[in-house]
């Protein structure tokens, strides 16, 4: 049974900061299929298109028939733990620090034997389930977990290391004025977050979410204006050293594409908040988080951006806003690579139309704040890079995978 994770003590400022080190990150190109699957939290292995053999480790040819067409497909994750070991010493700095570390061999029902991380509650000789996860180096790895849920399962040190569970971590939500902010703060507190900082711009201007936020034990409202560099820098100076998870939920949006607007005024506002706001935040908070990637139980773990699914394919009804979302998504890719040496993950929560004033013309289904909050928490626990929140986002992503150009026409209403 996993011991419940104790609340971490206050940090001692006299102590030398533990420098983040990463597990081995080099992989072959074939192995990147595992990483791509883990980024979405899916357990996929290579399947031979010709003979159907499921193989592992990833190869460039089928081990059964030498077929060259190898597809990464969702695979039955159940198997038996047939051997295990606890590594006490390693020449690698990361595992030296993490030791003792349990690993084992799982014989998968689908065929191959797989050497993987092993959750402490797995019993040798019993059935286990494999999960694909991103490790601290941002690479896909496999971990065996018990087939049935066990008490405090998420507190297992190996599983926790492969995610960004909000439990005992300190979170910053950047915009309290967003309609979803209270639900998000509550979901994080319910998930065990130690503190939830919530940024609010133009503090003199009242807003309905404030009273709900104020009532929550564990929420700290902080002045934060993403369009103002000095405001962002000031807040980072105050709380930057204790933000373990940063959730950027700020959003400025107006309807309309290019021709529907007579000028660039709203476009400028959209970029100011949605793109440059993200950059200001990243420049102020990013370096500190990157340095705190190995800071004990409540280390810096994840950066979350909540974006529209139309970041991947533009819907001209909100064409200008969607362009700012695409800009933010691209910037987040850069940020992901830049934070990786610190072991900090960058996650995007892709949302369909939200159930608020700005999408009033759009027919349902529309996202309620609770759904976004649940997606954020689950995504953090799983440590994924992409979360598709709601049916519309899932549908668009699937169409995008099939053919981005067809989706473009569909969004423009050209397809009957």
């Amino acid at each position, binding site marked *: 049974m996993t011991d419940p994770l104790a609340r971490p003590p206050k940090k001692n400022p006299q102590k030398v900061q533990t420098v983040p080190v990463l*597990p081995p990150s080099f992989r072959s190109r074939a192995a990147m299929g595992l990483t791509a699957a883990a980024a979405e939290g899916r357990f996929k292995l290579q399947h031979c298109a010709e003979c159907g053999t499921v193989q592992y*480790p990833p190869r460039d040819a089928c081990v059964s028939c030498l077929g060259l067409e190898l597809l990464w497909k969702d695979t039955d994750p159940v198997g038996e733990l047939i051997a295990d070991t*606890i*590594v006490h010493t390693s020449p690698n700095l990361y595992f030296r620090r993490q030791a003792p570390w349990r690993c084992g061999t799982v014989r998968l029902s689908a065929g191959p034997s797989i*050497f993987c991380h092993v959750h402490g509650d797995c019993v040798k000789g019993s059935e286990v389930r494999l999960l694909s996860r991103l490790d601290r180096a941002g690479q896909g790895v496999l971990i065996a977990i018990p087939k049935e849920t066990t008490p405090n399962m998420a507190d297992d040190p190996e599983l926790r290391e492969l995610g960004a569970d909000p439990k005992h971590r300190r979170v910053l939500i950047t915009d309290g004025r967003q309609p979803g902010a209270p639900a998000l703060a509550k979901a994080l507190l319910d998930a065990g977050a130690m503190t939830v900082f919530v940024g609010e711009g133009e503090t003199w201007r009242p807003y309905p979410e404030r009273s709900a936020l104020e009532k929550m034990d564990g929420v700290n409202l902080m002045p934060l204006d993403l369009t103002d560099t000095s405001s962002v820098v000031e807040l980072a100076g105050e709380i930057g050293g204790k933000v373990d998870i940063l959730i950027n939920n700020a959003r400025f949006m107006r309807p309309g594409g290019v021709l529907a607007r007579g000028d660039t005024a709203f476009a400028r506002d959209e970029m100011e908040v949605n793109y440059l706001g993200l950059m200001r935040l990243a420049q102020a908070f990013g370096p500190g988080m990157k340095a705190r990637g190995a800071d004990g139980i409540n280390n810096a773990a994840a950066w979350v951006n909540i974006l529209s699914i139309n970041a991947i394919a533009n819907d001209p009804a909100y064409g200008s806003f969607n362009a700012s979302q695409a800009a933010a998504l691209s910037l987040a890719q850069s940020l992901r690579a830049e934070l990786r040496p610190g072991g900090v993950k960058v996650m995007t929560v892709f949302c369909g139309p939200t159930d608020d004033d700005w999408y009033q013309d759009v027919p349902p289904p529309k996202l309620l704040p609770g759904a976004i909050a649940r997606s954020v928490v689950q995504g953090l626990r799983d440590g994924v890079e992409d979360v598709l929140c709601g049916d519309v986002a899932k549908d668009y992503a699937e169409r995008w995978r099939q053919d981005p150009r067809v989706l473009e026409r569909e969004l423009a209403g050209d397809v009957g």
Partner: protein
Amino acid sequence: MSRRQSYDGVVVTAPFSTPYERYSTQTAHYWLARALKGTLDAAGLRKEGIDGLSVASFTLFPDSPVGLSQHLGVTLRWLDSIPMGGASGVVALRRAARAVQAGDAEIVACVAGDTNHIDSFRKLLSSFSRFAMDAAYPYGYGGPNSMFALLTDRYMQEYGATREDFGRIAVAQRENALRNPNALMKRPLSLEDYLEARPISDPIALFDCVMPCAGAEAFLVMSEEEAVKRGLPFARIAGTIERHNAFPDDPIQLRGGWALDVEDLWSMAGMKPADMDLVQTYDDYPVISVMQFEDLGFCSKGEAPAFLRDRDLTVTGDLPHNTSGGQLSAGQAGAAGGFLGMVEALRQVTRTAGPTQVADAKNALVSGFGMINYDRGLCSGAAILTGESA
């Protein structure tokens, strides 16, 4: 059934081992040169006397054996590179013997060696294989220790072996090593020491693991006629086998490629396990020695612990095993670890083993095992060397 031709007319001679050093500031080139010089001196040859060279080394980078030929100034008409780690001794012997038999070379020097810089074990690990990079290192980075821990764990579950069973092998080898002035380990090892040692990767503890070091080993392969002419004590090759990636569908390795070829080995030699005066197994971990006794026909699968419990594995015992101390107690000088048993066996059957000499040794079995590409050793081989009657 394969029809393997005999190695009649070819012999092995001039065994040479450098002393081993835990860490060395020298290069692989240095260690290989030193061993080559040693084996040539033993045969009274100058380097111009050889026309074939077989090289096994992990740390020769950026050179290959081709570069080494220029580095050492040898002109060759036959050159081989054996990238097979623990199986390199057997494989080098097989290939060199066929080359000599076919007349492609007259005298082949087989050398294996590596240096060991501070940090070179970590560097070697980090560039070992693609499967290891993709599917082994990211999981605890225990290197071969983890893989053999799993294998040991599985073997213990399956056959009821205990740590004491593995410990007895290590303890006997240490006793042998105390006779070998070149062995790195100089202190006696008790079963209690073994059992109480620091855990490395459960159930593997400190004395299950070899000590990486620098050093080199070498021998010569030539025609019997040539050896007789030079007055060199020699051994014949009664039989030998080699196998790669055997039993790929076994979920975890509990047997090696020997099991596929063991009948060939004994029938080729016209001998049986009981005819062996000594056995040199590849002992990167005791469980692998245990597997070799089973797969090479000394006992059935799963019975080696009981089989070995009743036997004395020391130089003066009834089943002398890894008489120079093996890698566990002499040290593992990289690829030279794959030559250690071969060179020692050659000394034994030519009665030149000095302090580790087994009385009246005539027949020796040498076994090799190597290359943990991912979750198991892929290369296996074995050879039976026979000396002249005393």
